[in-house]
């Protein structure tokens, strides 16, 4: 049986229950939610233990990027190895798809958890991740001695 006014009372009860639950708001600058482990934010370089870059300058990330926001300017040194003049990354246009990270064969970049990306100047939206460094040359695996036939 429907009694007139029960819906109104139900509304009052629900809102009072909400009152008792207390606020569930997170006060952002002081309190933060922890990001999930696989959250994807800015593309960031990984480095070797000695601080040198892991990037070999293979340009796969540049080719893979759907937004064309990674630009690597390179030159060749006299000994034939590559030299990275600038690794430019446009944060403002990045959609954080993570394809570059998935494509990188040398595990040189990763999606960081840096999510406070607002800047005062538009120039800050273009980041130079690497500047004037020698590309990483993967040490050639030692040729194992031919086993005795």
């Amino acid at each position, binding site marked *: 049986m429907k009694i007139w006014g029960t819906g*109104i009372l139900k*509304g*009052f009860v*629900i*809102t*009072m229950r*909400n*009152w008792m*639950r*207390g*606020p*569930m*708001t997170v*006060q952002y600058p002081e309190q933060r939610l922890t990001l999930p482990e696989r959250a994807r934010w800015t593309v960031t370089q990984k480095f070797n233990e000695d601080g040198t870059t892991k990037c070999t300058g293979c340009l796969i990330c540049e080719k893979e990027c759907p937004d064309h926001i990674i630009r690597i300017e390179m030159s060749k040194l006299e000994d034939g190895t590559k030299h990275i003049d600038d690794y430019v990354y446009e944060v403002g246009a990045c959609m954080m798809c993570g394809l570059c990270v998935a494509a990188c064969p040398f595990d040189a970049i990763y999606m960081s958890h840096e999510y406070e990306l607002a800047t005062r100047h538009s120039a800050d939206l273009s980041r130079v991740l690497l500047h004037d460094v020698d590309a990483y040359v993967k040490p050639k695996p030692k040729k194992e001695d031919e086993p005795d036939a």
Partner: protein
Amino acid sequence: MNAVAPIAIRILAMLGLLLVNGVVLIYMLRKVLGRLHIRIGPNRVGPFGLLQTVADVVKLLTKEDLMPDSADKWLFWIAPFVVFVPSFLAYLPLAFGPNLAVTRLDTGLLFLLAVLSLIPIGVLMAGWASNSKWSLVGGMRAAGQQIAYEVPLLLSVLGPVMMAGSLDLSKIIEAQKNLWFVFPQFIAFIIYIIAAQADTQQTPFDMSEAESELITGFANEYGGMRFGFLFLAEFSNMFIVAALGTALFFGGWYLPFLADNPIALSLGPVIFIAKAYIGIFVMMWARGALPRIRVDQLLAFAWKALIPISLSWVVIWACIQRLVLVR
């Protein structure tokens, strides 16, 4: 000078109460609605956000006083005051304690309701003078709604008036020393809270503001302190109907079972205002709980349900009082 000073002090106290009420109620509304929505509400300006309303008032005061080009200048200018002055005058007959009222009128209740019924004129003026269709729709709605709901409001207060035998609010409160009128007059009380909520244009009856469709309706084109006046009047109306409900149904400054206690009597005004604020809290609770009803439902409810019920309650109670209580 001696004749003028006490009057001036009373008027200033009235104005002070109105302004403090406005500031406190805006803060309270935000906090209460926040908690009902599982939020926190204002918490940045001052401790617990206590100074938020002060900051807002300063903002409103320093804003440019804009007027639309096509507005009806004179009406646009005067409308906020036509809304504000009645709600200011309505504090006159309120009795806060045994000997504490701005003035004691024999027809205080009649005066209060008469003054409150002037507000729709100001609201309609504001809506018309803005020369905007949203404002006009809001103003028309407010006028239609307040005229419709004033009838049950007036009829619902007749029960307590019959019981007390007076229109003087102090006498009505004194008559409730032993029995609050809410118990014998429960039906009148229900009608009163519905009609009061509608008369002050609080959600679920805020057709004239209707934030989601009319964007504050009649106050649409107002800015700065004119807007402030319109809203101050609204919040002060909330306090007035809550205080009137306290006086008519909840025994004003009396505490239950402690009616003769001298300490309780000396705390009369505090008790009165606390009761009024509890009433305001319930109004805000309804605001957080209930959705806005449709205009046709609103008017049909007033004319088809509330007015017949309140009229028959007046007749029934008159019969009871004449035949049973007073032999």
